[in-house]
């Protein structure tokens, strides 16, 4: 939003670096030493801590310097992600000191998720340990591209070159085995003696590589996402009418790509299409183009009904839409991540119910890589019927890293993390807390993929008439929607559907009853009913779509299409609400989730009232 006044912001680069590693391998000491050696400590601070240690008879530790909180010092472990600031000759650093203790893994992740680069510390004497590996996995999973490995406490092994190289070899092999990025550099250091941190030491003349500070200074900033395809997850649609502001603003952060006034854009998963009319802002110069990184807002030429969670893109390079995601993830919840239960998936700005479809692999990061395996690699014969040893995994335990296929209750827009980070990663909420997170490695096809693809191609190339959907909504006073009555033959669907149609019509709604039989008689006349069920469903859905496009509330019933097929119909009408009313015999329960369960013996007027109330609650008739 181009600076309206003079540009005064710090022109120096800034970089977030997370420091990780097994507990006691020396992270705090590395950070403390870096702060001290770059002159980032307040004057006298170091001496004060040293004096305090002398007074209390404790050996001095750099960690004390960093411990801002009492209870932290009491426990002697860094409990949270503390931030420290220091400057090199070329840029400003924020060091995120992530705790190595397993109990605090979620803090480590919070720190690492914000970092552009990571320094992983390994104790030369102890060698590669459980959390050296687990942190390696996590860095890879969080998509951190720049990793520097410091082999610390070289003073304890007499600065032995072979020792250093042994650890380098072992850890490189481990990273390779999990398909992680190659580290930029392995550096032999001694944090205590300041060897190869901010300046070159004299104890390791055999090491010709750069110091830690030199490596950090040499790390490139993450490439700009401006050249990627446009992605803007819709954060909110604002209308501050009460404050006398009539703009209807689609707000969000452009996560990738760029967009101009006049561009045709599409929203996924609803497939709604419109054109950018203006780019909005407060106290900024007007602009006609905006790109990745900006939290902004747009008005559209044609007002379309969209909600938070949709992803705005250009038509040609839209995100994927589906329900099944193959992911690499880590679980941090106190209770395990289990099959057969709903969780909340948050991806971009969308949130929806999700469950485990399949667990491909769970990696216990505490074991050396013999039991591990590359995440995201083609499946081995895990869980195959012929393999007596492989019991299929049913849960992902706390601190486990896993390769899982998730299934969302409704289709959502996403990307593979390799294509777009912001729409390619997610978290899972269990009750009130974020309990896991990960990245999408593959889109897994489900039964409705073809129908969804058909709908997308159709909608993206739809030739609009002269009257817009918004104008129809304004004229009719309601949105288009499908109310579908399902239940077994003879249960009374037809009668209720007619009653609802009449009630809507009486209330001045543009309603139309579509009986499936009528579609069969005409549109489906060429089809052999038993042989082409899926085609019957498809044609029915497309007919509904046309009627919805005309702005109608379609009330429908058909014996050809059961509750199970409703999702198929829905795949063809991604932009319109579907209200499912299931009618069952008196006393019988629901067979599948529906919006309204009606018992066959309920009085008609009551059912009609319930349906009308539901249409209001879903903001179909209350616009």
């Amino acid at each position: 939003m181009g600076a309206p006044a003079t540009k005064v912001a710090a022109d120096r680069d800034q970089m977030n670096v997370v420091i990780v590693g097994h507990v006691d391998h020396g992270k705090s000491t590395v950070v403390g030493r870096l702060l001290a050696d770059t002159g980032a400590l307040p004057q006298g601070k170091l001496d004060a801590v040293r004096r305090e240690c002398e007074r209390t008879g404790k050996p001095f530790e750099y960690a004390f310097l960093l411990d801002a909180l009492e209870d932290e010092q009491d426990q002697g472990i860094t409990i949270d992600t503390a931030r420290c600031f220091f400057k090199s000759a070329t840029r400003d650093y924020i060091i995120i000191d992530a705790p190595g203790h397993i109990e605090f893994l979620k803090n480590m992740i919070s720190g690492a998720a914000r970092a552009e680069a990571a320094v992983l510390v390994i104790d030369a004497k102890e060698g590669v340990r459980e959390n050296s590996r687990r942190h390696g996995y996590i860095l890879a999973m969080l998509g951190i591209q720049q990793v520097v490995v410091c082999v610390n406490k070289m003073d304890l092994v007499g600065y032995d070159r072979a020792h250093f190289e042994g650890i380098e070899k072992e850890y490189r092999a481990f990273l390779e085995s999990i398909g992680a990025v190659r580290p930029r550099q392995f550096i032999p250091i001694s944090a205590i003696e300041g060897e190869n941190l901010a300046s070159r030491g004299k104890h390791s003349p055999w090491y010709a590589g750069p110091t830690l500070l030199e490596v950090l200074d040499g790390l490139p900033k993450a490439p700009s996402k401006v050249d990627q395809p446009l992605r803007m997850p819709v954060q909110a649609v604002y209308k501050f009418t009460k404050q006398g502001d009539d703009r209807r603003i689609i707000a969000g952060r452009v996560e990738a790509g760029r967009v101009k006034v006049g561009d045709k854009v599409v929203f996924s998963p609803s497939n709604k299409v419109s054109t950018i009319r203006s780019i909005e802002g407060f106290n900024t110069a007007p602009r006609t183009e905006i790109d990745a990184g900006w939290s902004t807002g747009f008005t559209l030429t044609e007002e379309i009904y969209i909600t938070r969670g949709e992803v705005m893109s250009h038509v040609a390079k839209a995100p994927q839409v589906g329900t099944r995601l193959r992911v690499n993830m880590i679980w941090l919840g106190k209770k395990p991540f289990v099959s057969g239960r709903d969780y909340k998936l948050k991806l971009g700005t969308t949130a929806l119910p999700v469950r485990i479809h399949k667990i491909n692999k769970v990696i216990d990061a505490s074991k050396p890589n013999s039991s591990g395996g590359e995440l995201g690699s083609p499946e081995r014969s895990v869980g195959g019927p012929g393999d007596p040893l492989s019991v299929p995994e049913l849960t992902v335990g706390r601190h486990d890293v896993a390769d899982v296929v998730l299934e969302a209750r409704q289709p959502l827009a996403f990307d593979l993390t390799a294509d777009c980070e912001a729409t390619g990663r997610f978290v899972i909420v269990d009750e009130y807390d974020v309990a896991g997170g990960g990245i999408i490695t593959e889109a897994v096809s489900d039964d409705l993929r073809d129908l969804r693809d058909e709908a997308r191609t159709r909608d993206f190339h739809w030739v609009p008439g002269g009257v817009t959907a918004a104008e129809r909504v304004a004229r009719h006073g309601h949105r288009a929607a499908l109310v579908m009555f399902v239940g077994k033959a003879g249960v009374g669907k037809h009668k209720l559907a007619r009653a609802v149609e009449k009630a809507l019509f009486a209330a001045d709604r543009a309603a139309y009853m579509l009986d499936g039989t009528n579609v069969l008689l005409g549109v489906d006349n060429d089809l052999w009913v038993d042989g082409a069920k899926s085609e019957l469903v498809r044609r029915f859905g497309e007919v509904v779509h046309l009627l919805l496009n005309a702005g109608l509330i379609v009330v429908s019933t058909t014996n050809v299409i059961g509750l199970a097929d409703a999702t198929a119909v829905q795949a063809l009408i991604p932009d319109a609400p579907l209200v499912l009313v299931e009618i069952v015999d008196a006393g019988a329960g629901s067979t599948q989730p529906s919006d309204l369960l009606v018992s066959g013996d309920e009085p008609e007027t009551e059912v009609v009232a319930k349906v009308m109330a539901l249409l209001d609650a879903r903001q179909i008739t209350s616009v």
Partner: protein
Amino acid sequence: MDHLDQLEQQSVYILREAFRHFERLCMLWSIGKDSTVMLWLARKAFFGHVPFPLVHVDTSYKLPEMIAYRDKLAFEYKLQMIVGQNKQALEEGDTFPIKLGKNPSMGKEEQQQLRTACCGRLKSDALGATLHGTGTRRRMNLATGAYEVDPDREPYTGVIVGARADEEGSRSKERYFSPRDKNDNWDVGDQPPEFWNQFKTDFAPGTHVRVHPLLDWTELNIWEYIKREQIPTVSLYYDQGSGTRYRSLGCGPCQSPIKSASKNVDDIITELKSGALKNVAERSGRLQDGKHGLEELRRKGYM
């Protein structure tokens, strides 16, 4: 996009997430530079509007200029301005200035204790009562500019706070969205993970979440942004000829100015960049902090 832009964009994103997820959302406005920048960022986020109430806790010891400035901006920006106060403590004379007045020869140690206790009552308790709706909230009538008792007593479940990580040790442990339990306590050791920009937006009944849009900003960033956006600030931040100014604003009796000849925003930026203040903690003029004072206060709900 420069660094200030990046900070601004992230703060805007956070504010919008907060607005989306908390029906009962408010923003604390201390009148200081940080929360005023935050208020400005809210106007950025919501295209000139501020769609939630601003809450100020008036200890009655704020400098009059701060109150005048608050009311002027609230009126101009059409803010939903809510003010809370611990009337009972004031009436009972349970404040540091009154107790010191009764016993001027009081020792340093005791003064320090009373200061912390006073903050606890006039700020933390008052804030708690205002947020929970157990204390009286007064709301500015935007037609008259006068304050009236607010009939709304519903608790706020999302509270936006202008804490910065660089300010002081314990603040660097905050998340963007940090939960507080039923008693407003902060369990520093057991905070939920914060992956990327997915924040804690689900919360158990009775608990609430503090939102920190300024976590990544530094004192220098705040001033640079004030300059860039030309945000109005209280003149107490500037040297008016005495060679001193306030670096952080609190209550009259418990704050002391720092030695500085910075007369305007540019001077302050130059001063900060020069490193002249590097070895002075930003809140050093805030006498209640003492050793562990602030951290203890924060655990108990102080912002």
